[in-house]
C-alpha cells in the first residue's frame, strides 16, 4: 500500500469514527453555537455593536472550540493501536498527516455549521464574504495541523485537552488575524492577499513542523 493510500485510509478511519460518535459535529458544534449566543448577553444586545464584533467572535469560537475537535480525534489513539500501525509499516508522518487531513475536514464542516449561526445572531455586513471560500479552508488546514501536533505532543497525558490548546493556541494567532482581516480588507476595497499569504505561511510552517517532528513524536507514543 502506498503512503498516500495509507494516509487516505487513516483519514477515512477518523472520519468514520466521527460519523459513528458524532462527538465533534453533534456536541462541540452546539457548544460553539451556545458560546456565540452567550456573548451578546454579556456585552449587550446592541445590533450595530454585534454587527461589528460578530465576525471576530465567530473566529475566536472557531479557534477555541476547533482545537477541541482536533484533540478529540487524538483521544482514540492508544499505544497498542499505534504499535499495530507501526508494525503494519505506517510511517509516523503518514499517520499524523492522515489525522491532520481528517481534522481539517472536520474543522471545515464545523466552520460551515457555525456560519449560519453567526449570521443569524450577529447579522454582519455581507461585504468581502466571497473571500471566506479561501479563508475557511486555510484556517481549517492550519488548525488541523496545529491541533494534530498538539495532540501528538500531549498524547496519553491526563491534562491533554487543556494542555493541547495552551501549547498551540498562541501559535494560531496569525490564523485568527488573517481570517478576520482578509474579508475586512476586501470589504474596504484593499487586496486581501497579504493576509491570505500569512495564513498559508502558517499552514506551511505547521506542515513542516509535523513532517520534521513526527518521527520524534512517534517515539513518544
Amino acid at each position, binding site marked *: 500500500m502506498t503512503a498516500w493510500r495509507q494516509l487516505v485510509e487513516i483519514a477515512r478511519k477518523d472520519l468514520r469514527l466521527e460519523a459513528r460518535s458524532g462527538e465533534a459535529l453533534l456536541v462541540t458544534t452546539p457548544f460553539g453555537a451556545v458560546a456565540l449566543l452567550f456573548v451578546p448577553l454579556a456585552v449587550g444586545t446592541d445590533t450595530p455593536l454585534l454587527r461589528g464584533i460578530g465576525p471576530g467572535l465567530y473566529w475566536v469560537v472557531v479557534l477555541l472550540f476547533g482545537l477541541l475537535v482536533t484533540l478529540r480525534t487524538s483521544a482514540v489513539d492508544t499505544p497498542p493501536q499505534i504499535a499495530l500501525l507501526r508494525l503494519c509499516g505506517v510511517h509516523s508522518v503518514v499517520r499524523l498527516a492522515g489525522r491532520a487531513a481528517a481534522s481539517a475536514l472536520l474543522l471545515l464542516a464545523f466552520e460551515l455549521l457555525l456560519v449560519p449561526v453567526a449570521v443569524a445572531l450577529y447579522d454582519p455586513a455581507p461585504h468581502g464574504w466571497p473571500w471566506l471560500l479561501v479563508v475557511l479552508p486555510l484556517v481549517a488546514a492550519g488548525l488541523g495541523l496545529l491541533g494534530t501536533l498538539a495532540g501528538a*505532543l*500531549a498524547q496519553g497525558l491526563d491534562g491533554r485537552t487543556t*494542555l493541547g490548546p495552551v*501549547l498551540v493556541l*498562541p*501559535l494560531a494567532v496569525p490564523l485568527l488575524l488573517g481570517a478576520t482581516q482578509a474579508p475586512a480588507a476586501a470589504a474596504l476595497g484593499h487586496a486581501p492577499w497579504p493576509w491570505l499569504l500569512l495564513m498559508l505561511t502558517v499552514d506551511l510552517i505547521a506542515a513542516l513542523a509535523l513532517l520534521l*517532528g513526527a518521527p*520524534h513524536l512517534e517515539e*513518544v507514543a
Partner: protein
Amino acid sequence: MTLFGRRLPIIAAVLLAVGLVAGLVAPPDRIQGNLQRLMYVHVPAAWLAFLGFAITFGASLAWLWRRKPRYDRLAASAAEVGVFFTGLAIVLGSVWGKPVWGVWWTWDPRLVTTALMFFVYLGYLALRRATLDPLVRARRAAVFGVLAFVQVPIVHMSVLWWRSLHQPPTVLKPGDPTIDHSMLAALLVNVLAFTAVFALFVRARVRLAVAQDEEDTLPGPLAGDVVTAPRLEGVSRDE
C-alpha cells in the same frame, strides 16, 4: 558543590551594583526624564529572555541529535529563567508604559507578541510538568522547544513589521546605535550584570535538575520501611 557557587554570586552582585550606579549617573532622557532609567532593567530583561529561549532552542536541537540528558536539563533551565525574565520585562514595561503612554497595557504588536511568547513558554513548562517519564519528557519538550522558538524573531521584528507604539530597535540593528553613548554604556553594563544573574540562575537550576535526576535513580525507601516487624521472640502465641 553549592547550589549558587561562590564566585559567580559575588561577580553578579558587584556587576549589579556597578550597573545600578551607571544607571543612576547616566543622563536623564530629554523628554521622559528619570522615567527613562527603567530602560536599564527593562531592556536587559527582554534581551535575556531572548537569550534563554535561544539556549532552549539550541539545547533542544542538541538533545534531538545527541540524546544526552544534560542538554534537556539545560533547555528546561534556560526556559524557566527565560520565562522569569519575560515576565519581568512585561511588568517593567507596563510600569514604564503607565506614565508615558497613559495605560498599563496597549494592543501594540510588541506587547502582544511578547505576551504570546510568554504563554508559549509557559506551555513548554506545563508540558514538562505533565510528563513524568524523563525520556518521554525530554523528547516532547525538545520537539516543542524547537517549534516554540519561532516566536522569538517575530517578537523582535514586530516593531518593524507592524505600526507600533513601542520604539524600534536602537542597538540590535544594523548601523550605529541610535542612543546617546553614555546611555548606551550604562545599558551595556546593566546587560552584563543581568547576564551574570541569568548565568547564576541557569547554573543553579541545572544543578538542581542534576540532583533531582540523581535522586530519582537512587533506590528510594519503601513505604513499608518505616514499619518495624513485631518481635515475636519469647512471646507466646496465646498471649
